[in-house]
Protein backbone atom coordinates (compact mmCIF):
# COMPACT_ATOMS: atom_id res chain seq x y z
CA UNK A 1 0.00 0.00 0.00
CA UNK A 2 1.34 3.35 -1.03
CA UNK A 3 1.63 5.93 1.70
CA UNK A 4 3.07 8.54 -0.59
CA UNK A 5 1.44 11.93 -0.71
CA UNK A 6 1.57 14.01 -3.85
CA UNK A 7 2.03 17.73 -3.48
CA UNK A 8 1.00 19.72 -6.54
CA UNK A 9 2.70 23.04 -5.93
CA UNK A 10 4.57 25.43 -8.21
CA UNK A 11 6.13 27.70 -5.57
CA UNK A 12 9.46 26.24 -4.54
CA UNK A 13 9.46 28.17 -1.29
CA UNK A 14 6.07 26.68 -0.41
CA UNK A 15 7.43 23.19 -1.08
CA UNK A 16 10.43 23.89 1.17
CA UNK A 17 8.21 25.22 3.96
CA UNK A 18 5.96 22.19 3.61
CA UNK A 19 8.93 19.84 3.93
CA UNK A 20 10.26 21.74 6.95
CA UNK A 21 6.91 21.72 8.70
CA UNK A 22 6.46 18.02 7.88
CA UNK A 23 9.85 17.25 9.38
CA UNK A 24 9.02 19.30 12.44
CA UNK A 25 5.96 17.16 13.20
CA UNK A 26 7.74 13.91 12.21
CA UNK A 27 5.64 13.32 9.15
CA UNK A 28 7.55 10.49 7.57
CA UNK A 29 5.46 9.55 4.57
CA UNK A 30 7.24 10.00 1.26
CA UNK A 31 6.34 13.31 -0.38
CA UNK A 32 6.36 13.56 -4.17
CA UNK A 33 6.18 16.99 -5.71
CA UNK A 34 4.96 18.06 -9.13
CA UNK A 35 5.25 21.65 -10.17
CA UNK A 36 2.34 22.24 -12.49
CA UNK A 37 -0.99 20.87 -13.60
CA UNK A 38 0.39 19.10 -16.65
CA UNK A 39 3.01 17.32 -14.53
CA UNK A 40 0.28 16.28 -12.12
CA UNK A 41 -1.67 14.69 -14.97
CA UNK A 42 1.52 13.03 -16.29
CA UNK A 43 2.23 11.68 -12.82
CA UNK A 44 -1.23 10.16 -12.57
CA UNK A 45 -1.22 8.68 -16.02
CA UNK A 46 2.33 7.42 -15.55
CA UNK A 47 3.58 9.06 -18.72
CA UNK A 48 6.85 10.75 -19.57
CA UNK A 49 9.31 10.79 -16.73
CA UNK A 50 6.69 9.30 -14.39
CA UNK A 51 6.36 5.97 -16.20
CA UNK A 52 8.08 4.06 -13.38
CA UNK A 53 5.32 3.32 -10.86
CA UNK A 54 7.75 1.95 -8.32
CA UNK A 55 9.54 5.26 -8.16
CA UNK A 56 6.39 7.31 -8.59
CA UNK A 57 3.61 5.35 -6.90
CA UNK A 58 0.04 6.52 -7.12
CA UNK A 59 -0.44 8.57 -3.98
CA UNK A 60 -2.56 7.87 -0.92
CA UNK A 61 -3.73 11.44 -1.20
CA UNK A 62 -3.12 14.56 -3.24
CA UNK A 63 -2.64 18.07 -1.95
CA UNK A 64 -3.59 20.28 -4.86
CA UNK A 65 -2.83 23.96 -5.19
CA UNK A 66 -5.31 25.89 -7.32
CA UNK A 67 -3.03 28.50 -8.90
CA UNK A 68 -0.69 26.55 -11.12
CA UNK A 69 1.11 27.15 -14.39
CA UNK A 70 -0.09 25.45 -17.61
CA UNK A 71 -3.10 23.80 -16.14
CA UNK A 72 -5.03 25.20 -13.25
CA UNK A 73 -5.68 23.05 -10.21
CA UNK A 74 -9.39 23.04 -10.96
CA UNK A 75 -8.68 21.54 -14.39
CA UNK A 76 -6.56 18.80 -12.84
CA UNK A 77 -9.33 18.04 -10.34
CA UNK A 78 -11.93 17.94 -13.09
CA UNK A 79 -9.72 15.67 -15.17
CA UNK A 80 -9.12 13.27 -12.26
CA UNK A 81 -12.85 12.96 -11.61
CA UNK A 82 -13.56 12.12 -15.23
CA UNK A 83 -11.06 9.22 -15.15
CA UNK A 84 -12.77 6.17 -13.70
CA UNK A 85 -9.48 5.08 -12.11
CA UNK A 86 -9.14 8.32 -10.15
CA UNK A 87 -12.78 9.03 -9.39
CA UNK A 88 -12.31 8.03 -5.78
CA UNK A 89 -8.73 9.20 -5.23
CA UNK A 90 -8.50 11.46 -2.19
CA UNK A 91 -7.93 15.01 -3.44
CA UNK A 92 -7.53 17.79 -0.92
CA UNK A 93 -7.33 21.33 -2.23
CA UNK A 94 -4.47 23.17 -0.53
CA UNK A 95 -4.40 26.80 -1.49
CA UNK A 96 -4.10 30.37 -0.30
CA UNK A 97 -7.46 31.26 -1.83
CA UNK A 98 -10.29 31.86 0.61
CA UNK A 99 -12.59 32.91 -2.18
CA UNK A 100 -16.06 31.43 -1.67
CA UNK A 101 -16.38 30.71 -5.37
CA UNK A 102 -13.15 28.72 -5.40
CA UNK A 103 -14.31 26.78 -2.38
CA UNK A 104 -17.73 25.99 -3.85
CA UNK A 105 -16.30 25.08 -7.22
CA UNK A 106 -13.69 22.79 -5.67
CA UNK A 107 -16.35 20.81 -3.80
CA UNK A 108 -18.54 20.66 -6.89
CA UNK A 109 -15.65 19.34 -8.93
CA UNK A 110 -15.22 16.59 -6.37
CA UNK A 111 -12.57 17.71 -3.89
CA UNK A 112 -12.72 15.68 -0.69
CA UNK A 113 -11.69 18.64 1.42
CA UNK A 114 -10.49 22.24 1.10
CA UNK A 115 -7.63 23.58 3.17
CA UNK A 116 -6.43 27.15 3.29
CA UNK A 117 -2.65 27.33 3.66
CA UNK A 118 -1.73 28.49 7.15
CA UNK A 119 0.45 31.58 7.29
CA UNK A 120 2.92 30.25 9.85
CA UNK A 121 5.14 27.20 9.83
CA UNK A 122 3.72 26.17 13.22
CA UNK A 123 0.23 26.38 11.80
CA UNK A 124 1.30 24.29 8.85
CA UNK A 125 2.89 21.67 11.09
CA UNK A 126 -0.31 21.47 13.12
CA UNK A 127 -2.29 21.04 9.90
CA UNK A 128 0.03 18.32 8.59
CA UNK A 129 -0.21 16.43 11.84
CA UNK A 130 -3.99 16.56 11.86
CA UNK A 131 -4.11 15.66 8.19
CA UNK A 132 -2.02 12.62 8.91
CA UNK A 133 -4.05 11.66 11.95
CA UNK A 134 -7.23 11.67 9.97
CA UNK A 135 -6.29 10.54 6.49
CA UNK A 136 -3.30 8.30 6.96
CA UNK A 137 -4.13 6.44 10.13
CA UNK A 138 -5.47 2.92 9.87
CA UNK A 139 -9.15 3.64 10.38
CA UNK A 140 -9.84 5.92 7.48
CA UNK A 141 -10.52 3.83 4.43
CA UNK A 142 -9.16 4.89 1.12
CA UNK A 143 -9.88 3.02 -2.07
CA UNK A 144 -7.01 0.58 -2.48
CA UNK A 145 -7.50 -0.98 -5.85
CA UNK A 146 -7.52 2.35 -7.59
CA UNK A 147 -3.97 2.80 -6.62
CA UNK A 148 -2.74 -0.70 -7.20
CA UNK A 149 -4.16 -1.41 -10.59
CA UNK A 150 -1.32 -1.44 -13.12
CA UNK A 151 -1.35 1.35 -15.63
CA UNK A 152 -1.60 0.32 -19.25
CA UNK A 153 1.79 0.82 -20.85
CA UNK A 154 0.35 2.23 -24.00
CA UNK A 155 3.64 3.75 -25.11
CA UNK A 156 5.12 0.28 -25.48
CA UNK A 157 2.25 -1.12 -27.46
CA UNK A 158 2.67 -1.18 -31.23
CA UNK A 159 0.46 1.21 -33.11
CA UNK A 160 -2.43 -0.54 -34.79
CA UNK A 161 -1.88 -1.04 -38.49
CA UNK A 162 -4.69 0.63 -40.30
CA UNK A 163 -3.18 0.68 -43.74
CA UNK A 164 -3.05 4.44 -43.66
CA UNK A 165 -0.14 6.75 -43.85
CA UNK A 166 0.29 9.07 -40.88
CA UNK A 167 -1.44 12.33 -41.44
CA UNK A 168 -4.48 10.87 -43.09
CA UNK A 169 -7.42 10.93 -40.76
CA UNK A 170 -10.38 8.95 -41.83
CA UNK A 171 -13.57 10.70 -40.88
CA UNK A 172 -16.67 8.68 -40.11
CA UNK A 173 -19.33 9.02 -42.77
CA UNK A 174 -21.78 11.82 -42.16
CA UNK A 175 -25.27 10.84 -41.20
Amino acid at each position, binding site marked *: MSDTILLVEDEESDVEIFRLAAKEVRFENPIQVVKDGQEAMDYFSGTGKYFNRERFPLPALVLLD*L*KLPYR*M*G*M*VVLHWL*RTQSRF*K*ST*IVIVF*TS*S*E*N*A*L*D*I*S*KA*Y*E*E*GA*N*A*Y*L*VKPSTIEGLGY*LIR*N*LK*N*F*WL*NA*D*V*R*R*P*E*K*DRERPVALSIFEPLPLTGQLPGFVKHPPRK
Partner: protein
Amino acid sequence: MKPILQVEDDPNDVILLHHALKNAGVKNPVQVASNGREAIDYLQGAGKFGDRSRFPLPCLVLLDLKLPYVMGLEVLKWIRQQIGAELVVVMLTASAEEVDIKTAYSLGANAFLTKPSEAIKLEDMLRALKDFWLTHNTLPRELLEKTTAPRSLDSRTTIFGYLPSRNGTTHDEPLTKKGGK
Protein backbone atom coordinates in the same frame (compact mmCIF):
# COMPACT_ATOMS: atom_id res chain seq x y z
CA MET B 1 -22.69 26.13 16.81
CA LYS B 2 -23.96 23.94 14.03
CA PRO B 3 -24.90 20.40 14.92
CA ILE B 4 -23.49 17.13 13.68
CA LEU B 5 -26.15 14.93 12.15
CA GLN B 6 -25.69 11.29 12.98
CA VAL B 7 -27.63 8.90 10.78
CA GLU B 8 -27.66 5.64 12.69
CA ASP B 9 -30.33 3.08 13.39
CA ASP B 10 -28.65 1.19 16.22
CA PRO B 11 -29.47 2.94 19.54
CA ASN B 12 -26.36 1.45 21.18
CA ASP B 13 -24.14 2.99 18.53
CA VAL B 14 -25.89 6.31 19.02
CA ILE B 15 -25.03 6.29 22.73
CA LEU B 16 -21.47 5.08 22.14
CA LEU B 17 -20.83 7.79 19.59
CA HIS B 18 -22.36 10.45 21.77
CA HIS B 19 -19.97 9.61 24.62
CA ALA B 20 -16.98 9.26 22.35
CA LEU B 21 -17.66 12.64 20.72
CA LYS B 22 -17.83 14.26 24.14
CA ASN B 23 -14.60 12.61 25.24
CA ALA B 24 -12.94 13.66 22.01
CA GLY B 25 -13.76 17.26 22.86
CA VAL B 26 -16.41 17.84 20.20
CA LYS B 27 -18.68 20.60 21.47
CA ASN B 28 -21.15 20.63 18.63
CA PRO B 29 -24.63 19.38 19.47
CA VAL B 30 -25.47 16.00 17.97
CA GLN B 31 -28.76 15.39 16.19
CA VAL B 32 -29.84 11.87 15.36
CA ALA B 33 -31.80 10.53 12.42
CA SER B 34 -32.52 6.86 12.96
CA ASN B 35 -33.04 5.89 9.34
CA GLY B 36 -32.43 7.14 5.81
CA ARG B 37 -35.92 8.59 5.45
CA GLU B 38 -35.46 10.63 8.65
CA ALA B 39 -32.10 11.88 7.45
CA ILE B 40 -33.69 13.25 4.29
CA ASP B 41 -36.57 14.72 6.30
CA TYR B 42 -34.11 16.39 8.63
CA LEU B 43 -32.11 17.94 5.80
CA GLN B 44 -35.27 19.06 4.05
CA GLY B 45 -36.76 20.41 7.24
CA ALA B 46 -39.79 18.21 6.75
CA GLY B 47 -42.12 16.37 9.12
CA LYS B 48 -41.02 16.46 12.74
CA PHE B 49 -37.85 18.34 11.72
CA GLY B 50 -39.83 21.29 10.36
CA ASP B 51 -38.49 23.77 12.90
CA ARG B 52 -35.09 24.97 11.61
CA SER B 53 -34.28 26.80 14.81
CA ARG B 54 -34.52 23.51 16.68
CA PHE B 55 -33.06 21.41 13.88
CA PRO B 56 -30.53 23.58 12.04
CA LEU B 57 -28.64 22.29 9.03
CA PRO B 58 -25.59 20.34 10.20
CA CYS B 59 -21.93 21.17 9.61
CA LEU B 60 -21.18 17.48 9.18
CA VAL B 61 -23.16 14.32 8.52
CA LEU B 62 -22.00 11.00 9.93
CA LEU B 63 -23.73 8.46 7.75
CA ASP B 64 -24.11 4.75 8.32
CA LEU B 65 -24.38 2.49 5.26
CA LYS B 66 -26.92 -0.03 6.38
CA LEU B 67 -30.09 1.78 7.31
CA PRO B 68 -33.79 0.94 7.32
CA TYR B 69 -36.03 2.28 4.51
CA VAL B 70 -33.45 4.29 2.61
CA MET B 71 -29.87 3.01 2.51
CA GLY B 72 -26.91 5.21 3.35
CA LEU B 73 -25.66 5.44 -0.21
CA GLU B 74 -29.11 6.56 -1.36
CA VAL B 75 -29.06 9.29 1.27
CA LEU B 76 -25.61 10.33 0.06
CA LYS B 77 -26.82 10.46 -3.53
CA TRP B 78 -29.81 12.53 -2.46
CA ILE B 79 -27.59 14.96 -0.54
CA ARG B 80 -25.31 15.52 -3.52
CA GLN B 81 -28.26 16.06 -5.84
CA GLN B 82 -30.44 18.20 -3.61
CA ILE B 83 -28.17 19.93 -1.11
CA GLY B 84 -24.99 20.13 -3.14
CA ALA B 85 -21.36 19.24 -2.83
CA GLU B 86 -20.55 21.42 0.15
CA LEU B 87 -22.15 19.49 2.97
CA VAL B 88 -19.45 17.31 4.49
CA VAL B 89 -20.57 13.69 4.57
CA VAL B 90 -18.37 11.18 6.38
CA MET B 91 -19.41 7.55 6.16
CA LEU B 92 -19.20 5.83 9.54
CA THR B 93 -19.97 2.18 9.17
CA ALA B 94 -19.08 -1.35 10.15
CA SER B 95 -18.22 -2.16 6.55
CA ALA B 96 -14.68 -2.21 5.25
CA GLU B 97 -15.66 -3.67 1.87
CA GLU B 98 -13.70 -2.26 -1.01
CA VAL B 99 -16.83 -1.98 -3.13
CA ASP B 100 -18.61 0.10 -0.44
CA ILE B 101 -15.60 2.33 -0.01
CA LYS B 102 -15.22 2.94 -3.71
CA THR B 103 -18.91 3.49 -4.35
CA ALA B 104 -19.20 5.90 -1.44
CA TYR B 105 -16.27 7.99 -2.67
CA SER B 106 -17.52 8.02 -6.24
CA LEU B 107 -20.92 9.19 -5.05
CA GLY B 108 -19.24 12.07 -3.28
CA ALA B 109 -18.53 10.99 0.27
CA ASN B 110 -15.85 13.21 1.77
CA ALA B 111 -14.36 10.37 3.79
CA PHE B 112 -15.03 6.81 4.85
CA LEU B 113 -14.52 5.56 8.39
CA THR B 114 -14.88 2.03 9.65
CA LYS B 115 -16.21 1.85 13.20
CA PRO B 116 -13.56 0.45 15.49
CA SER B 117 -14.67 -2.07 18.07
CA GLU B 118 -12.89 -0.48 21.01
CA ALA B 119 -14.23 2.68 22.60
CA ILE B 120 -10.77 4.21 23.00
CA LYS B 121 -10.09 3.78 19.30
CA LEU B 122 -13.41 5.38 18.47
CA GLU B 123 -12.42 8.37 20.57
CA ASP B 124 -9.09 8.69 18.79
CA MET B 125 -10.87 8.51 15.48
CA LEU B 126 -13.35 11.18 16.42
CA ARG B 127 -10.60 13.40 17.74
CA ALA B 128 -8.87 13.12 14.38
CA LEU B 129 -12.19 13.80 12.68
CA LYS B 130 -12.73 16.90 14.78
CA ASP B 131 -9.21 18.19 14.22
CA PHE B 132 -9.44 17.81 10.49
CA TRP B 133 -13.08 18.51 9.57
CA LEU B 134 -14.07 20.97 12.26
CA THR B 135 -10.73 22.78 12.54
CA HIS B 136 -8.90 22.85 9.23
CA ASN B 137 -11.41 22.11 6.54
CA THR B 138 -12.90 25.19 4.89
CA LEU B 139 -16.46 25.61 3.69
CA PRO B 140 -17.91 28.51 1.73
CA ARG B 141 -19.01 31.21 4.15
CA GLU B 142 -22.39 31.32 2.48
CA LEU B 143 -22.99 27.77 3.62
CA LEU B 144 -21.81 28.40 7.14
CA GLU B 145 -24.19 31.31 7.50
CA LYS B 146 -27.10 29.64 5.85
CA THR B 147 -29.91 28.78 8.21
CA THR B 148 -32.77 28.40 5.78
CA ALA B 149 -33.93 25.31 3.96
CA PRO B 150 -31.65 23.81 1.31
CA ARG B 151 -31.87 25.57 -2.00
CA SER B 152 -33.19 23.82 -5.04
CA LEU B 153 -30.87 22.94 -7.90
CA ASP B 154 -32.47 25.70 -10.00
CA SER B 155 -31.84 28.49 -7.54
CA ARG B 156 -28.28 27.23 -7.19
CA THR B 157 -27.68 27.55 -10.92
CA THR B 158 -29.06 31.06 -10.81
CA ILE B 159 -26.92 32.08 -7.87
CA PHE B 160 -23.73 31.05 -9.62
CA GLY B 161 -24.90 32.13 -13.04
CA TYR B 162 -25.07 35.76 -11.92
CA LEU B 163 -21.77 35.92 -10.14
CA PRO B 164 -19.07 37.27 -12.42
CA SER B 165 -15.54 35.98 -12.18
CA ARG B 166 -13.49 38.70 -10.57
CA ASN B 167 -9.80 39.44 -10.41
CA GLY B 168 -8.23 37.50 -7.66
CA THR B 169 -10.25 34.41 -8.25
CA THR B 170 -8.63 31.44 -9.85
CA HIS B 171 -11.41 30.70 -12.28
CA ASP B 172 -10.28 30.53 -15.84
CA GLU B 173 -13.69 29.69 -17.19
CA PRO B 174 -17.22 30.84 -16.52
CA LEU B 175 -18.88 29.03 -13.71
CA THR B 176 -21.49 26.64 -14.86
CA LYS B 177 -23.45 24.14 -12.91
CA LYS B 178 -21.70 20.83 -12.81
CA GLY B 179 -22.83 17.57 -11.39
CA GLY B 180 -21.54 16.38 -8.04
CA LYS B 181 -18.44 14.32 -7.64
